[in-house]
């Protein structure tokens, strides 16, 4: 698949309307692909896209939610803002879930929404919604363009805000009379004018020294690595730092891949369904160094029992995250990469932590992740391992939220960054499949696997049309247990087995469904068939949907029950 785009800015073609100017500005920002869906209020923009079709790419999705998740997947892989275009009213409101998801997981997006003409804003006009008010709390910033002459500055600022500091979604609301308005004369280039926005990149040297001193004295140090390391593209530096001082590393859910899982220093993922070794390392540590994680409640568990013996150092580009949930003794506001380079330069003495490392190795050996094979069916964990094997652990994997997400996080081990796409903060069902489409657009040569649940997949499955139309070779693995698995698990464990409305007794025939979209589908319900078919399915040069029937009763373990502390996990050993 090739994205049809050229990067040069054609100054010779003078823009005719506000929409033409907008497209020129997008090309200037390096945008190759717009994730879009037309409608009344954006007709002028679509007319401009028509005129510029050899200069900028556009992918038509089938629902605005799917397209914004795709843009998120694209942003996660490239680090560049995903560009979304939707019409006013329902087009814009359908984006709300994706915008919130991007806000929670700090993904750079620039979202353009159509709006009714300025003369009728506020009159409840056809397809009018107060998008500014709706999106103010869920965007990093938003704009409504009031004059064509503001457009160059606003577009420039939107891309700048979305992609710098702590990344996030920025929305630009475009009244129809702005985009259809004719341009007279030359529109001047604009400079960014953001006196209230100056992210801090460089760490305070005193705090770096404090951390270096604490590290030299520590006996039980541990690193927590989060998505901030991804945004800063600092995996190499993190690995060098951990290896230089022999510090064990726990990653967050979103931080998977920031540190190689096969390193002896890797403890795996921490949190609710993290490894025993990772959670006990956080619990027992005397120095916790957090790079770019936000101490989310799914990681910390009960805050009373979170790292109770540790001095906490927190490196984050967003000062508001430091001290928000966990009291922090060494606050460092900085870009993770810049901070790590400083630390590599200014730390000499390693902690004396041999005993600590030995203890953690014992934890790893004694309490590994586990599941029991069942001769009567396919274990979902085994399925993830089989996918790992057939892709040599090198695929880009995206997921929804729930059991399959946790199994993918536990059993598809990542040695490289920017391979893992998941909805962490918002926990959005229907995220995984469209996000995989965006990832495939961003990385046409990579193997992209959407590991999704049967329920979540049904929330955004209409985007099958897109992968057929564009022949995007996304491999869809439906971990089909006929249930809202995580809801069912909680009902079984915490609600006395009252299974309330969490079983999906009626499902489509996913194979026929795929075929009706022109996509190859296959249903597999046992291990032998999976082993036999998977290599060939992954070798297929096109999209594939595999409906994998797994055991419904299987649960995600180990588990830190809600309200419990890191040291109070259940299911740490085979039951």
């Amino acid at each position, binding site marked *: 698949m090739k994205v049809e785009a050229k990067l040069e800015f054609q100054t010779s073609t003078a823009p005719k309307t506000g929409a033409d100017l907008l497209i020129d500005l997008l090309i200037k920002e390096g945008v190759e692909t717009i994730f879009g869906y037309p409608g009344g209020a954006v007709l002028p923009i679509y007319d401009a896209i028509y005129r510029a079709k050899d200069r900028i790419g556009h992918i038509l999705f089938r629902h605005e939610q799917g397209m914004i998740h795709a843009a998120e997947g694209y942003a996660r892989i490239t680090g560049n803002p995903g560009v979304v275009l939707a019409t006013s009213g329902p087009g814009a409101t359908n984006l709300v879930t994706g915008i919130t998801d991007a806000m929670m997981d700090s993904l750079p997006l620039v979202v353009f929404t159509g709006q009714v003409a300025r003369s009728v804003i506020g009159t409840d006009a056809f397809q009018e919604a107060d998008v500014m*008010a709706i999106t*103010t*709390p869920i965007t990093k910033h938003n704009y409504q363009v009031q004059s064509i002459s503001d457009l160059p500055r606003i577009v420039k600022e939107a891309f700048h*805000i979305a992609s710098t500091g702590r990344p996030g979604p920025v929305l630009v609301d475009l009244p129809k009379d702005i985009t259809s308005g004719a341009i007279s004369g030359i529109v001047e280039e604009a400079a960014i004018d953001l006196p*209230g926005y100056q992210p801090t990149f460089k760490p305070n040297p005193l705090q770096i020294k404090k951390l270096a001193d604490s590290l030299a004295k520590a006996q039980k140090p541990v690193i927590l690595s989060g998505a901030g390391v991804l945004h800063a593209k600092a995996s190499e530096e993190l690995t060098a730092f951990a290896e230089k001082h022999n510090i064990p590393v726990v990653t967050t859910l979103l931080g998977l891949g920031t540190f190689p899982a096969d390193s002896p220093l890797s403890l795996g993922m921490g949190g609710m369904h993290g490894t025993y070794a990772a959670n006990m390392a956080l619990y027992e540590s005397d120095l916790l160094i957090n790079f770019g994680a936000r101490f989310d409640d799914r990681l910390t568990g009960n805050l009373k029992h979170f790292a109770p013996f540790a001095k906490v150092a927190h490196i984050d580009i967003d*000062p*508001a995250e430091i001290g928000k949930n966990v009291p922090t003794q060494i606050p460092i506001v900085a870009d993770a990469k810049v901070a790590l380079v400083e630390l590599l330069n200014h730390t000499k003495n390693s902690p004396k932590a041999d005993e600590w490392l030995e203890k953690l190795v014992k934890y790893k050996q004694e309490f590994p992740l586990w599941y029991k094979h069942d001769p009567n069916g396919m274990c979902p964990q085994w399925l993830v391992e089989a996918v790992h094997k057939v892709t040599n652990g090198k695929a880009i994997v995206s997921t929804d939220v729930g059991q399959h997400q946790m199994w993918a996080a536990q059993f598809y081990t990542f040695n490289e960054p920017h391979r893992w796409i998941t909805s962490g903060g918002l926990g959005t069902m229907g995220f995984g499949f469209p996000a995989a489409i965006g990832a495939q657009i961003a990385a046409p040569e990579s193997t992209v696997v959407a590991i999704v649940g049967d329920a979540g997949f049904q929330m955004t499955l209409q985007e099958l049309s897109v992968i057929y139309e564009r022949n995007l070779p996304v491999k869809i693995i439906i971990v089909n247990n006929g249930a809202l698995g995580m809801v069912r698990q909680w009902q079984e464990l915490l609600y006395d087995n009252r299974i309330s409305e969490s079983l999906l007794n009626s499902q489509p025939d996913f194979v026929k469904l795929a075929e009706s979209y022109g996509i190859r589908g296959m249903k597999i319900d046992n291990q032998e068939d999976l082993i036999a078919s998977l290599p060939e399915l992954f070798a297929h040069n096109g999209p594939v949907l595999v409906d994998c029937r797994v055991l419904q009763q299987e649960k995600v373990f180990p588990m830190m029950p809600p309200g419990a502390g890191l040291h109070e996990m259940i299911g740490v050993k085979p039951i």
Partner: protein
Amino acid sequence: MKRIITLTVQDRSGVLNRVTGLLQRRQFNITSISVGPTETEGVSKMTLVVDVEDDQRLEQVTKQLNKQIDVLKVSDITDKAIVARELALIKVTSGSQLRSEINGLIDPFRAIIVDVCKESITVQVTGKPEKVDALIDLLRPFGIKEIARTGLTAFLRGHQPQVNELVTYSLLK
């Protein structure tokens, strides 16, 4: 605890909504808010009085406000030497026979009568919220028909005393 927080913000559409929406979203209580232009064109000043549980929450609220793109500066000035004022308009039931009595009562507050009609008079008072409260309490027996208050506005005094002198200047603790 009550804290006085001043914000300098860019005078752009929606900026008040951004600030109040953020405070609501993060569950901070606003006691009062006042907004107006400053000496610089395009820059407005907001004075917020917020009720926060502890220092950790206070730090959160200032950091979250600082993150707003249109917010230029956030200062918690509660413990500084400040000038803090509020204006209140109080409509009091009053026939002609009570006017001189009310006049005598409001005089020590340096309040003035700004509107008179047959059944009522309107008193205007400026000062710290405690002073306004005290006057309202004194006027209550006459029968208050309506009150309108602007909310607090405040800024730093020209001279900031040394840290050890500060306690006496604290207004709202």
